[in-house]
């Protein structure tokens, strides 16, 4: 089975070479037969990669320690779920997952891209083939997961304990679906450059892919953030760690792309910019892969460091980013320029959005790469953390968030800020009220906290206002309004949900950062501690055995106002035999939207233990907002206009609005 997987991987590499050459030549020479090769080859390549991945996963599931990769990252006593997720909990396996998703997206284009012009489809598949070929070669030469060991060891060395968590089942696949999803946008851009032709329909094809990638990337980042929050035991949800930034940069650029693609689709403007953004977004994904996988950064994600890998990925990076930008420089001037628009308009607002988002991306990029560059050039070692990003990223985001509600309320071509402001009066009043209530009635609220709450409420209320205005609130009878509401295009709901989710996340961040409390203390069994109105009693430490670890579990009872126990929180120190490694399992209890978070420190000789306790108000909203944003993207994807083969492609927007049935 393992050799089958290895062989399938080599075959998939060979097919990716065919995929990158034959359709390209076909498109160049206008040969229909050569172009038609692209589809079946892409689908077969995906099937082979899937077979290869399945072979590795089954080796993991069956604890086949004759495979070096399995031996290094698995253990026969691990629960089955961690055996399987361990497949991608290491460098080689995660790269295999990367190409699996890449070929999956290629196959989707091949299968669902029948309404694409033949040459465009052929070129897109060829570019996908190029990316695939580069990464297949990378895996086969530097990161082969199928290397055998002889003699086979009896027992594996266990998966890194930090990764033995359900988060590993969700976070990497989601993140990769996002990262790699942008490869399709990249391929479309390069294909358009190769053809030297780009029109509004191009944007209509690219937008759903951007939405899909953005949706998964949002979920992947949110999930990664929650995982780090509960697993690392530091109580933080975002550390501005270079690895986090590596996923955040494509998200910011992808968000900009999402918005500029709307302008291109609706108004045929910003064509060249959209194309460039698509290239940059995937370039940032590649950069992220490089930063995480090359070992230049040290983190949980850098599994093993091998200089050959870093150099190889750097070559891929240079080739694709350099190549696509060179092609862009050569061809962009030959593309027809877009239409005109007034600065005060929906387009203008979206341009402003792009300006903020790309600049913010640039500041994150500088903050992430500057320490690396400095070390390479001068040997000086610095760390750029939260204080840097608070000062650079923060000031860019705040004005952007403040103007978000205006965007959807401005008309295309020529908008009216005054009219939009009037419609937003109610939302503004609610936001001000929320700000005053926070500032005046909540103890210990700073000016910043009040402003933050106000801004978050402004975003939520603004998103709801958008829906209300578009349903005709205030001007038509409630029954008509309800009918109009139901008939609104799904993309309108998508926009409103995404913006609302942003507000929800912001509320969670402000709540946690400004109203959170924490205590560090030593406790003996029977002692109680009080934090922000919650009383906890330490019951003691209880030793337990897990499948491949032993642990000391500290039990705490949450005591209600009447003195009775309301529930239990427990945190544990785990010790994994195979790796001789200890981890801390934090104890979390969700109360409404907030959480009590408890982390265990060292044990004293007298049965006392160091306890760090946090009260995190509204913290769940941080990730809840991410889910709402994902729902927004899904809603937008379901829009008729973006559905594959939707017959309404050429219908005028006005007609679509008045006859939703």
């Amino acid at each position, binding site marked *: 089975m393992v050799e089958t997987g290895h062989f399938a991987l080599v075959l998939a590499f060979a097919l990716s070479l065919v995929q990158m050459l034959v359709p390209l030549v076909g498109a160049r020479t206008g040969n229909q037969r050569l172009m038609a090769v692209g589809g079946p080859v892409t689908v077969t390549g995906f099937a082979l990669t899937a077979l290869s991945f399945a072979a590795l996963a089954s080796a993991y599931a069956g604890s086949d320690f004759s495979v070096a990769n399995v031996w290094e990252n698995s253990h026969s006593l691990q629960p089955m779920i961690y055996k399987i997720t361990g497949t991608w909990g290491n460098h080689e396996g995660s790269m295999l997952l990367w190409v699996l998703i890449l070929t999956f997206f290629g196959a989707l284009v091949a299968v669902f891209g029948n309404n694409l012009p033949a040459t465009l489809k052929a070129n897109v598949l060829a570019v996908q083939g190029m990316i695939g070929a580069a990464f297949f070669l990378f895996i086969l030469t530097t990161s082969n997961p199928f290397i055998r060991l002889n003699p086979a060891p009896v027992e594996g060395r266990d998966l890194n304990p930090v990764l033995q968590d359900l988060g590993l089942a969700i976070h990497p696949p989601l993140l990769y679906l996002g990262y790699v999803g942008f490869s399709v946008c990249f391929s479309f851009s390069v294909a358009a450059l190769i053809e030297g032709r780009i029109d509004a329909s191009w944007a209509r094809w690219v937008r759903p892919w951007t939405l899909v990638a953005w949706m998964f990337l949002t979920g992947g980042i949110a999930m990664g953030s929650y995982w780090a929050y509960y697993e690392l035991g530091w109580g933080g949800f975002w550390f501005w760690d270079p690895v986090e930034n590596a996923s955040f940069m494509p998200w910011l650029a992808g968000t900009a792309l999402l918005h500029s693609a709307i302008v291109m689709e609706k108004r045929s403007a910003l064509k060249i910019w959209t194309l460039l953004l698509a290239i940059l977004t995937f370039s940032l994904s590649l950069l992220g892969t490089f930063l995480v996988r090359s070992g230049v950064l040290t983190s949980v994600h850098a599994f093993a460091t091998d200089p050959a890998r870093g150099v190889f990925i750097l070559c891929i990076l240079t080739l694709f980013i350099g190549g696509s930008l060179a092609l862009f420089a050569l061809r962009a001037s030959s593309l027809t320029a877009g239409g005109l628009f007034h600065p005060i308009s929906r387009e203008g607002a979206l341009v402003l959005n792009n300006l903020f988002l790309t600049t913010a991306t640039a500041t994150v990029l500088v903050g992430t790469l500057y320490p690396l560059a400095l070390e390479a050039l001068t040997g000086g070692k610095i760390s750029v953390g939260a204080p840097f990003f608070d000062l650079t990223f923060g*000031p860019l985001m705040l004005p952007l968030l403040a103007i978000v509600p205006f965007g959807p309320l401005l008309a295309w071509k020529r908008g009216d800020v005054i009219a939009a402001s009037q419609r937003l009066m109610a939302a503004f009043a609610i936001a001000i009220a929320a700000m005053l209530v926070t500032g005046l009635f909540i103890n210990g609220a700073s000016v910043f906290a009040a402003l933050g709450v106000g801004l978050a409420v402004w975003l939520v209320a603004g998103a709801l206002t958008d829906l209300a205005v578009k349903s005709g609130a205030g001007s038509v009878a409630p029954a008509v309004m309800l009918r109009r509401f139901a008939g609104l295009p799904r993309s309108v709901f998508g926009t409103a949900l995404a913006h609302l989710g942003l507000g929800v996340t912001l509320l969670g961040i402000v709540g946690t950062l400004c109203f959170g409390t924490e205590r560090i203390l030593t406790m003996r069994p029977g002692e109680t501690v009080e934090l922000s109105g919650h009383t906890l009693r330490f019951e003691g430490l209880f030793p337990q055995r897990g499948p491949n670890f032993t642990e000391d579990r500290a039990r705490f009872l949450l005591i209600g106002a009447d003195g009775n126990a309301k529930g239990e929180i427990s945190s544990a120190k785990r010790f994994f035999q195979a790796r001789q*490694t200890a981890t801390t399992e934090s104890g979390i209890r969700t109360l409404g939207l907030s959480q009590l978070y408890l982390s265990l420190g060292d044990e004293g000789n007298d049965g006392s233990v160091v306890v760090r306790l946090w009260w995190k108000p509204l913290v769940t909203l941080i990730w809840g907002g991410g889910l709402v944003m994902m729902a927004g993207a899904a809603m937008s994807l379901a829009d008729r206009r973006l559905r594959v083969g939707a017959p309404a492609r050429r219908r005028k927007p006005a007609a679509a609005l008045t006859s939703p049935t």
Partner: protein
Amino acid sequence: MTRKQKRLSVIVAGLAFLAAAAGLTFYALGQKASYFYMPAELATASVPPGQRIRLGGLVENGTVVRGSGATVAFSVTDTQKSVKVTYTGILPDLFREGQGVITEGAFGPDGVFVADSVLAKHDERYMPKEVADGLKAKGVWVESKSQ
């Protein structure tokens, strides 16, 4: 406005915006980035009390003292010089004597380094890269045994 003027105004606005962001970035890099030092380097570099730095090295054997509550005192050494550090909070699971750590914080007026974060890496075989590089440069690097 003609097409050209319009495009120009967009570009000028964009550039002004970028310039502002760039200015802010450079200011922040100068003010908010914290430099990494090993104990021996602190003798030559003058780090005023209160300036945030990162201090890396090995936790010196026999120096870890758990005080009252959650405060811990220990020394960080690069085998040539050592620096006294105090930290209040939960030490990472991999923190122990002889292991590499990176602490972040600032010197107090009494010359004791007050750390507000202590990092030891997740993998047992692993030493923070800055610390490993620093020890290699000083010629006191010992290849880890488990590799």
